């Protein structure tokens, strides 16, 4: 590979998080500080070793507030990534680029919020006084929640390929089964059956039932990225960043990309997938596990197609409980995902894949060599491939 590659140059050396709950009882800034500090400790470093910070544009904890709380002194790089949950792996991309180019030596990416007890994304009642311009094309018609934005897109996919809501059940069943054996998951010891999925109430008919929608959570997650060379000598086995990419394609909107010729795919994720495979030299069949961003189940099926795990329109038959479970060919969302573990805007998918590579996950798979992580879909998005050293 040429010198102009990101692949392999940096690694995730530290991970940190708070507990995941429905009411943290403390500020978003405190959650951010706790998670960031935990990631630094986990990496075997000190706050003064950190010289870069990256978060989401949606995050309320400013970089300098985090730095002054945690006691960091000199920050040479700070950056934010837009588009909601699409930012998750994108934060790691920013950090990896900074480390690979020598702009920074140790960068912490964080996301912390009280999304359940505080500002809930799906609750527009009484919250919006002036609509942002883009929402003005949707809110007057009652299309106001992430679930409804996704469903109007996904219904077109269902129509095209003969997919029904029952075809989404395997994703929810697998996620909840994995959460059931993860003591840190909100839905610990609470698996679901196919019947329970099908009997759960409609949120957006005829696309999304309650059990197709991820939960809402309070919590914080952080990861620390440094050079692979340095990470080698730190306490925990590095999760090498084999590939990282963001993806935006023509005619994107924030969850309402309804104006493209074809509404049966997620072209942003197709772009991310192509970049990840090219950068890493790996293929879908090389993945030991995948954390596929699961805010809403239909977009997990569409991701499997965009990433090349199966062909267009094939996911409804390909994505079986057997194949996606811990003992299957492609175990997904081994911590329980956003449906089962917690909704920390996708950052908890990155930490779970790091644990799988380290061999310390609660639902530990056999030898995990390569893990794929994706970020929020239906928006400009991002993805990562993490590998064992």
């Amino acid at each position, binding site marked *: 590979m040429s010198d102009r590659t990101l692949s392999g140059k940096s690694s995730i050396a530290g991970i940190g998080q708070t507990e995941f709950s429905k009411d943290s009882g403390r500020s978003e800034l405190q959650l951010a500080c706790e998670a960031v500090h935990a990631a630094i400790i986990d990496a075997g470093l000190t706050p003064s070793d950190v010289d870069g910070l990256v978060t989401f544009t949606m995050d309320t904890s400013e970089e300098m507030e985090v730095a002054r709380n945690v006691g960091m002194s000199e920050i040479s790089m700070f950056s934010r990534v837009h588009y909601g949950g699409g930012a998750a792996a994108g934060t790691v991309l920013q950090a990896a680029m900074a480390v690979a180019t020598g702009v920074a030596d140790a960068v912490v990416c964080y996301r912390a919020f009280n999304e359940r007890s505080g500002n809930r994304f799906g609750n527009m009642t009484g919250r919006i006084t002036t609509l942002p311009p883009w929402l003005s094309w949707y809110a007057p018609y009652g299309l106001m929640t992430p679930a409804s934005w996704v469903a*109007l897109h996904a219904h077109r996919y269902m129509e095209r390929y003969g997919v029904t809501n029952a075809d989404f059940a395997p994703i929810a069943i697998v996620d909840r089964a994995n959460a059931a054996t993860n003591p840190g998951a909100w839905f610990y010891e609470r698996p679901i059956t196919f019947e329970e999925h099908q009997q759960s109430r409609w949120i957006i008919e005829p696309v999304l039932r309650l059990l197709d929608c991820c939960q809402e959570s309070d919590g914080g997650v952080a990861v620390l990225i440094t050079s692979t060379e340095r990470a080698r000598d730190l306490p925990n086995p590095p999760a090498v960043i084999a590939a990282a990419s963001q993806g935006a394609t023509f005619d994107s909107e924030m969850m309402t990309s309804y104006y493209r010729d074809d509404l049966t795919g997620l072209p942003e994720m197709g772009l991310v997938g192509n970049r990840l495979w090219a950068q890493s030299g790996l293929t879908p069949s090389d993945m030991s596990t995948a954390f596929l961003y699961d805010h809403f189940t239909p977009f997990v099926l569409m991701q499997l197609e965009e990433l090349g795990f199966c062909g267009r329109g094939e996911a409804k038959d390909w994505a079986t409980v057997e194949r996606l479970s811990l003992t299957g060919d492609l175990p997904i969302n081994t911590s329980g995902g956003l449906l089962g573990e917690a909704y920390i805007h996708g950052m908890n998918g990155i930490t779970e894949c790091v644990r799988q590579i380290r061999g310390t996950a609660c639902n530990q798979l056999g030898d995990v060599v390569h893990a794929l992580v994706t970020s929020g879909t239906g928006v400009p998005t991002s993805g990562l491939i993490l590998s064992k050293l």
Partner: protein
Amino acid sequence: MSARLTPTITQDTAFFWEGLKTERLLIQRCDGCESLRHPPRPMCPQCRSLEWGTIEATGHGTVISYVIPRHPPLPFFDDEYIVALVELDEGVRLVTNLVDVSPAQATMGMRVVVRFEHFDNDLVLPLFAAESIS
């Protein structure tokens, strides 16, 4: 009694909302290459022209997707309602509501025609009814 959330109008989009007040459904058309675009925006992605005018849509179109939001309850939406993505015969798409159509009657590919609905907050929205019943 009947209102809807008020859209935020910008310099790029004012013509659309103004047109609705006189029951005209206007589509932005590039002066450079004559391509149509919606939602409105200042530059044509085909030819980069900043010059544009409008055409009045016939108001006929086809439902290419729809959903029935059940939860959470929203202000201004007490009754069951259908949100549809309609492709106008001119080729551009817009999000709207279907009126006088029950969820059981809604289908992909359904032919619809615009019906201008006047709301209390000085707002007119282009909603759509089935072609066959209007």
